[in-house]
């Protein structure tokens, strides 16, 4: 053909690089959260709402509106769409939303806890293939898994869901949140994933709740040194850290001072739409949320997010001049969740970043205990809260409802 090869096959990263989507601010990566309700009550979750909550369901986008939002997403140029929650399979109209997204030419990834992957759902994913399904696995034994999820029987239902997907060859990955409660079973989870021929990943950085900022880290959060030990034992994690260490070396120098607060893809190539039709920069940075029923996607993306992306640092916060950022789990969104301030430090993440840097030999100018950075500059985050009370979210209730009856008179 006259211009070039007529039908070149390219990977997504190649495509996005070729299009310069970051430089041109094209919203190619989207997240749609049709519900925050979940049938599990995971101790660490940052969004879950009760599955049966009529109040919460009433707040969610109705089907017709959710389909229209998917149309807006596609029209805006999104290519990669993540459907997540909450537990997205709790939506009774999930099949309609999912197949509509595929029909609009979106490459759809689904995050699920797996417990609602019935034969019907697995057949749906077989008939209409997603780019990927990622199932969260919270332990490799029933006691551990259900201690995290708080729901009896959920472990077996999760394994059954995974088996249904594997039996149909649906593109699948497993993952977990590495917690103090399940870290001893991560190796077993990795082995399980390998036995199924699927990839596995974990994340050890817990975030505060999105609705009220309450953090229930407590004894659930894996201590920094234990997380580091876990990462260093894992060849894949170690390789990722080594790559980030190269970025740390490249940033080292006395003149380092980031100009813009946001340096990630949020609002640059990616966006998040919550169950209520509000569009945000990402799944963490939610204070600036814009209602899609009031403004168009194009206006929010172009004007609102454009202004947020242009935000320069307003303080002398230590993070602004810290070359350990590539090794740090903090970001404006995480800081906002923890403190309400996108420029604040998150002490727990700061400690982990310093430990990683020392272990990888790139901690020059920093101390292992992070005292070089913690408290330096303004707006250091207070210690994580242990509960809330300022919002509507409810702590996990008892697994069984005890019904009290009066005894009959003897």
């Amino acid at each position, binding site marked *: 053909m006259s211009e070039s090869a007529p*039908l070149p096959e*390219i*990977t997504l990263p190649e495509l996005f690089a070729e299009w310069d989507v970051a430089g041109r601010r094209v919203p190619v990566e989207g997240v749609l959260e049709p519900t925050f309700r979940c049938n599990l009550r995971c101790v660490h979750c940052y969004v879950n709402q009760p599955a049966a909550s009529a109040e919460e369901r009433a707040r969610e986008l109705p089907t017709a509106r959710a389909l229209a939002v998917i149309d807006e997403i596609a029209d805006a140029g999104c290519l990669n769409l993540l459907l997540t929650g909450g537990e997205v399979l709790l939506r009774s109209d999930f099949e309609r939303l999912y197949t509509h997204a595929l029909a609009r030419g979106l490459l759809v990834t689904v995050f699920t806890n797996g417990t609602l992957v019935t034969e019907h759902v697995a057949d749906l994913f077989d008939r209409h293939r997603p780019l990927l399904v990622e199932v969260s696995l919270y332990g490799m034994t029933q006691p551990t898994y259900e201690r995290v999820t708080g729901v009896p029987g959920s472990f077996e239902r999760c394994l059954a869901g995974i088996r249904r997907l594997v039996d149909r060859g649906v593109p699948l990955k497993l993952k977990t949140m590495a917690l103090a409660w399940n870290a001893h079973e991560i190796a077993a989870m990795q082995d399980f994933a390998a036995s199924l021929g699927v990839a596995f990943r974990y994340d050890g950085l817990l975030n505060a709740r999105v609705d009220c900022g309450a953090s229930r880290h407590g004894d659930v959060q894996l201590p920094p040194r234990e997380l580091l030990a876990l990462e260093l034992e894992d060849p894949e994690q170690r390789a990722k850290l080594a790559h980030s260490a190269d970025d740390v070396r490249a940033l080292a120098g006395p003149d380092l001072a980031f100009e813009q607060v946001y340096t990630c893809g949020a609002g640059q190539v990616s966006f998040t739409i919550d169950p209520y039709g509000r569009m945000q920069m990402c799944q963490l940075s939610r204070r600036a949320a814009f209602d899609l029923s009031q403004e168009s996607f194009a206006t929010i993306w172009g004007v609102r997010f454009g202004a947020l992306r242009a935000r320069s640092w307003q303080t002398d916060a230590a993070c602004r001049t810290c070359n350990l950022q590539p090794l740090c789990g903090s970001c404006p969104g995480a800081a906002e969740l923890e403190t309400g301030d996108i420029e604040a430090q998150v002490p727990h993440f700061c400690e982990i970043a310093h430990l990683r840097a020392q272990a990888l030999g790139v901690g020059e100018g920093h101390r292992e205990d992070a005292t070089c950075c913690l408290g330096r500059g303004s707006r250091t985050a207070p210690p994580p809260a242990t509960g809330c009370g300022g919002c509507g979210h409810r702590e996990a209730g008892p697994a069984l409802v005890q019904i009290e009856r009066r005894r009959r008179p003897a």
Partner: protein
Amino acid sequence: MFARSARIVGRRIAGEYVLVPLVTHGADLDAIYNLNAVAAFIWERIDGRTSGDEIVSALTESFEVTPGQAEADYLEFVTRLGELGAVEAV
């Protein structure tokens, strides 16, 4: 004459044109297809009503190609699309 298959979706994104396959039983999506201007021009006219001759004629009017080159481009592209299951003869 060809019609587009329901198994593939054509999309224009940020001035570019891509074909996204809809994948079913036992297959994985391993590629999408980025069309150049000539390919996108042809794809948008494959509608089950417009003949190959008409598309070739439109190509010669819109691009600096000879009728022979345009016909070769058209045949090469629809052949590849046929291999992908992206078009069906009607």
